[in-house]
């Protein structure tokens, strides 16, 4: 066992990126993720990496696009309104098949919204957000330790599939301090990038990074190629944490902070003789459908808990495909579902008294 250090989530994101070999970070201040930039500004100067405080989120994501084109590991971080601005660049990176890592420490919206934690960026990160047929790989940690591991994985996945990878945490995850152990750094994979635009040295044909294909058949072939890649990702990379689901009366679907609250609900409900299971997607895309299919018919009902008005619930319903009822409990605006409120909902479903208000 290595040493455990007490660190803030946002600082762990930055440290994880550095340990994953990221030496190029481009950011723009926005609460509640700016500590990533603070940490990067200091460390990059110390180690001779690149830290640029860009003029906007738009510029920052395009700097990441440029750095990734050149073949280096590059990252940006932001929070919801800033992510909206980055969507153009993310779409371009997806189209140009660039390995980029984007951190979204989600705050409540819409609009300028608030600065407190939320999960209401599910649609914009998981369902596209930018224009065109593409998917981000979206990783959702439940705490600071997993944040570290998933940020390292994000760089590996981005390089492996030449695709944008998003690590999506809520404001709690960014702001809270927890013990973290920086383990497994040896698993960093650094594939060759013969496609990179880094200077041909007159030893090869010139490389081009682009997302434009004017000929409809060529563009269609490109999108089909991307789609084949997505099928492979769906097959190989979906991750899920399944707890207590065998013989459960009620199964709760929740990720991130909501999943942590739900773990306490499992204990409370057990005291009342109700068995509650938890399906916690770790990858929001690819969505771990198989876990839902496996338990589709066994509980009395499903409950999705989110810090939004219900976004992931659409994927839960699709995965269950009408085989069971799915109810919803959510808080928004920066509020977190209370353990007691989730428990009350679970009791109703277990007693067959469910039904959304």
């Amino acid at each position, binding site marked *: 066992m290595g040493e455990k250090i007490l660190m803030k989530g946002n600082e762990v994101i930055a440290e994880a990126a550095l340990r994953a070999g990221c030496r*190029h970070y*481009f950011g723009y201040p926005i609460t509640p993720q700016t500590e990533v930039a603070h940490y990067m500004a200091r460390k990059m100067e110390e180690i001779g990496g*690149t830290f*640029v405080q*860009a*003029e*906007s989120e*738009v*510029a*920052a994501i*395009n*700097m*990441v*696009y*440029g*750095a*990734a*084109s*050149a*073949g*280096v590991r*590059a990252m940006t971080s932001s929070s919801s309104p800033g992510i909206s601005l980055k969507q*153009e*660049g993310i779409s*371009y990176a997806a189209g*140009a098949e660039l390995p980029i890592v984007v951190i979204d420490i989600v705050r409540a919206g819409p609009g300028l919204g608030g600065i407190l934690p939320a999960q209401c960026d599910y649609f914009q990160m998981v369902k596209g957000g930018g224009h065109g047929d593409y998917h981000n790989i979206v990783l959702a940690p439940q705490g600071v330790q997993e944040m570290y591991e998933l940020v390292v994985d994000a760089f590996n996945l981005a390089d492996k599939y030449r695709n944008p990878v998003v690590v999506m945490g809520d404001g709690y995850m960014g702001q809270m301090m927890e013990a973290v152990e920086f383990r497994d750094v040896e698993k960093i994979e650094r594939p060759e990038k013969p496609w990179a*635009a*880094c*200077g*041909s*040295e*007159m*030893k090869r044909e*010139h*490389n*081009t*990074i*682009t*997302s*434009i294909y*004017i000929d409809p058949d060529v563009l269609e072939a490109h999108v089909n190629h991307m789609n084949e890649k997505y099928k492979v990702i769906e097959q190989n990379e979906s991750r899920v944490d399944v707890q207590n689901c065998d013989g459960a009366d009620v199964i709760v679907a929740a990720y991130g902070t909501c999943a942590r609250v739900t773990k306490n609900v499992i204990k409370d409900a057990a005291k009342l003789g109700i068995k509650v299971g938890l399906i916690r997607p770790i990858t929001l895309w690819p969505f771990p459908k198989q876990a839902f299919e496996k338990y589709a018919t066994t509980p009395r009902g499903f409950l999705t808990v989110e810090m939004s008005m219900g976004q992931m619930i659409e994927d839960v319903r699709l995965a269950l495909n009408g085989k069971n009822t799915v109810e919803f409990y959510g808080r928004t605006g920066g509020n977190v579902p209370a353990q007691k409120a989730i428990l009350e909902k679970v009791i109703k479903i277990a007693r067959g008294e469910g039904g959304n208000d």
Partner: protein
Amino acid sequence: MSIVFQRPHALIDKPLHYCPGCTHGIIHRLVAEVLDELGIEGTTVGVASVGCTYNSYEYFNCDMVQAAHGRAPAVATGIRRSLPDRTVFTYQGDGDLAAIGTAEIVHAATRGEKITTIFVNNAIYGMTSGQMAPTTLIGQVTTTTPFGRKPELHGYPVRVCEMLSTLEGAVYVERVAVNNVQNIRKAKAAIKRAFQVQQAGLGFSIVEVLSICPTNWGLSPEKALEWLGENMIEHYPLGNYKNVVLPSDKPASKE
């Protein structure tokens, strides 16, 4: 017999898609000649932008990255910061650079990014069929100023070199034109110097090239070249707006 004139190696042997009489071909050639003369084709990464030159990566033989509309200076920043021993240039039009990409060009310049921008100003949006550009002259008719550009309705044309030359990070700023042979030769010299400034690590360099758009100006190529000389240069004076001493410069002779 010796060859005295041929296609630069950095320019791919391929028909250009530009309209007849368009001066992008000349400007491409000048950039390619400079890449050849400085011997940097293999160590250069170019950034194509959005507009008529969106696919300039099909013509330049160096590595190329296609950028979103207006974002070429940010993309170039990311490339240059990742490849400190490479040469990086952007090739942008007036809509791309002076409208949607104003923030990116200003901040790349003020950061003193070691990149070179070739800014082609033809006072109109070419690709989207002749709309008003930020550089469209007062009185100029475009598809979105059908009765001519009026200051009270459309504001005034932007002078990019004058604006950027106020920034410390921009160390070489020059405006040239490609309306006659003499000016084309000056344009080539300016482009070469802009790349040399970057290679010397001195800061941001930009060459604004006054160019023509016969198709959307509704003029023959010959008349368009005349129109540039008679109208554009008055509003956009040619010359150097900011210069810096290069190690290769000969010391000024003492009088």
